[in-house]
């Protein structure tokens, strides 16, 4: 082979490699795009809800309360009758069956929504006002175009009569799209139009805070001790190997551990963010220790020597010089560990967070759900309305993860000091 041929071969090898590299990046980006597109196209509609404009007459005879009633009086009062009255006025129904079909167009919480309007303004007795009552899940999906209306009637959840009402409402511009505040405010519900991630958000928040409070100090102290103070011998080698092994243990195993120890033995309350936080902390601990030690190791030994040579003690050289330099790496490792914990589902299912919890937790020892478990729960549900909710929850989860990862990068770049 001549020199020219060899040179040519070397150049083409490099070109081939560049091509393969670019192709791999392209494929990876393609998958990300498909994923994002899939989630967005399914989930973005969940941020809007469909409502029907209804004229409500607050009839004193039906309500049995007066203007200026106290909050307790209003809460105790029965709004059922005026709700039915108002809803039935939307479209003329011939018989009881048609009346029921008409009422089914609205959310089961229509009465509560009307009561809420009265709570805001208790001077409405004898007045007529227009309220936007949330539509039922079926109408919501129909209006968003997710519902096939050309199926035969017996295979549809919406009857022909309901379709007639719907078309009439659309024609009269009575159907409105509103921002879906329920999605962020409410807890879980059997009715898709009322279900929200409020409970899951708070549950996840408490879990992550507890995880951070437990895992971060332990991980940082353990890393500093192992990296800077511990003698290098067989015992520390053994500990190091086991930390690496622990980081690779499947998360569901931590769920089993928590089930046995936290729930069965210590009897902590089931389905709570407290237990979730402890479980996630156990899981995250080795995942924080590893980057933490790596960033301590990355501090050049010359800095330690410089500090020791002016007479700093070991402790001073570590805490005045090494730890501050390792801090950016430590923080970003912690945030990435927490981001992993935030998306963790399997151990939470085992400790009972998969329970159907309607109430929003007010403390970490109230039963609660969490974002990834909520995704899992809704993805199992049959109703069409939960499909978009599932994707929208994934969007929320992903946006938290992206924010956390950006924060990690930002902290690393902002506080990283360069030496030499």
């Amino acid at each position: 082979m001549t020199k020219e041929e060899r040179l040519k071969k070397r150049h083409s090898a490099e070109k081939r490699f560049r091509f393969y590299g670019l192709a791999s990046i392209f494929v990876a980006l393609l998958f990300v795009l498909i994923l994002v597109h899939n989630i967005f196209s399914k989930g973005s509609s969940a941020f809007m809800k469909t409502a029907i404009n209804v004229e409500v007459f607050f009839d004193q005879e039906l309500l049995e309360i007066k203007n200026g009633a106290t909050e307790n009086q209003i809460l105790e009062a029965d709004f059922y009758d005026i709700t039915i009255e108002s809803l039935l006025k939307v479209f003329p129904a011939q018989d009881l069956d048609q009346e029921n079909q008409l009422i089914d167009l609205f959310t089961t919480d229509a009465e509560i929504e009307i009561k809420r309007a009265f709570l805001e303004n208790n001077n409405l007795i004898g007045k007529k006002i227009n309220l936007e009552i949330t539509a039922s899940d079926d109408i919501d999906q129909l209006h968003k175009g997710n519902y096939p209306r050309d199926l035969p009637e017996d295979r549809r959840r919406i009857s022909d009569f309901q379709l007639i009402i719907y078309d009439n409402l659309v024609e009269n511009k009575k159907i409105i799209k509103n921002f879906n505040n329920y999605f962020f405010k409410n807890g879980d519900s059997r009715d898709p139009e009322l279900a929200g991630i409020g409970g899951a958000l708070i549950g996840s928040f408490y879990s992550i805070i507890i995880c951070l409070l437990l895992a971060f100090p332990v991980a940082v102290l353990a890393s500093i001790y192992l990296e800077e103070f511990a003698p290098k011998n067989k015992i520390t080698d053994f500990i190091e190997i086991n930390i690496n092994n622990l980081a690779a243990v499947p998360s569901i195993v931590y769920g089993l551990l928590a089930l046995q120890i936290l729930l069965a033995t210590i009897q902590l309350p089931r389905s709570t963010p407290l237990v979730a936080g402890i479980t996630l902390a156990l899981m995250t601990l080795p995942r924080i220790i590893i980057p933490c030690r790596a960033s301590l190791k990355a501090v050049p030994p010359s800095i330690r020597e410089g500090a020791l040579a002016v007479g700093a003690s070991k402790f001073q050289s570590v805490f005045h010089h090494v730890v501050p330099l390792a801090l950016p790496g430590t923080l970003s490792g912690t945030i990435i560990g927490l981001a992993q914990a935030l998306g963790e589902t399997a151990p939470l299912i085992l400790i009972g967070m998969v329970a159907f919890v309607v109430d929003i937790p007010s403390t970490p020892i109230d039963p609660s759900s969490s974002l990834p478990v909520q995704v899992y729960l809704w993805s199992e549900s049959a109703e069409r309305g939960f499909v978009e909710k599932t994707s929208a929850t994934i969007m929320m989860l992903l946006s938290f993860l992206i924010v956390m990862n950006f924060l990690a990068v930002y902290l690393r770049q902002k506080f990283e000091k360069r030496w030499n």
Partner: protein
Amino acid sequence: MNEIKIKSKNLNVYYGEKQALFDVNLDLNEKEVTALIGPSGCGKSTFIRCINRMNDVIDICKVSGNIEIDGVEINDKNLDVVSLRERVGMVFQKPNPFPKSIYDNISYGPKIHGKGETKSELDEIVENSLKKAALWEEVKDRLDEPGTGLSGGQQQRLCIARAISVNPEVILMDEPCSALDPIATAKIEELIDELKKTYTIVIVTHSMAQAVRVSQKTGFFHLGKLIEVGKTEKIFKNPDNKMTQDYITGRFG
């Protein structure tokens, strides 16, 4: 001749199985510059790291024998290395300023030793240290800038100032000019000449010319043994040992 400041007796150092120093007996005089020369890996740096017990940092390193400073044994488990290193400062081969401001680089030592309780006392220590290290004029207007932003030679003088700041008796220099250009080297050498009036200086160097220029006494190491020690003039003009002769004339090393 000046009085003996540091005295080593039968000093042996082992890195694990490997012995790095063999029965080194070397006396270093007060307020003098002693240069240690020899080929790479001959134990010069290991020797000076025994004087401030920096070898303690290396787990596998074992030191036996005696080193006395002012007649007090320092190779003693019960000795507090913190106060030893306050008396024996060190400057390393590669400048290693802390990634902090110039001011903080200098004030760190005095602060941890409780010297300079007030801000004005600290200011004074910083100014004096930088002046002694011949760096004051260059940095006095930018004391809050990072020490790592200085040039290599300035960084090394900053490290010397840092060593001076705790007012030591001895300064150990481990090839302080090997990472510097000739102009920066000349400045450091001038500085060493000035510093020897106050401090006992031990300098490890690969440059024989430097040893001749800065030192009064020279020790030649080879394979962990101290081959010959004596007045610099004598070592370079008329060494007793054949190996020393070969080394300084460049026949090996």
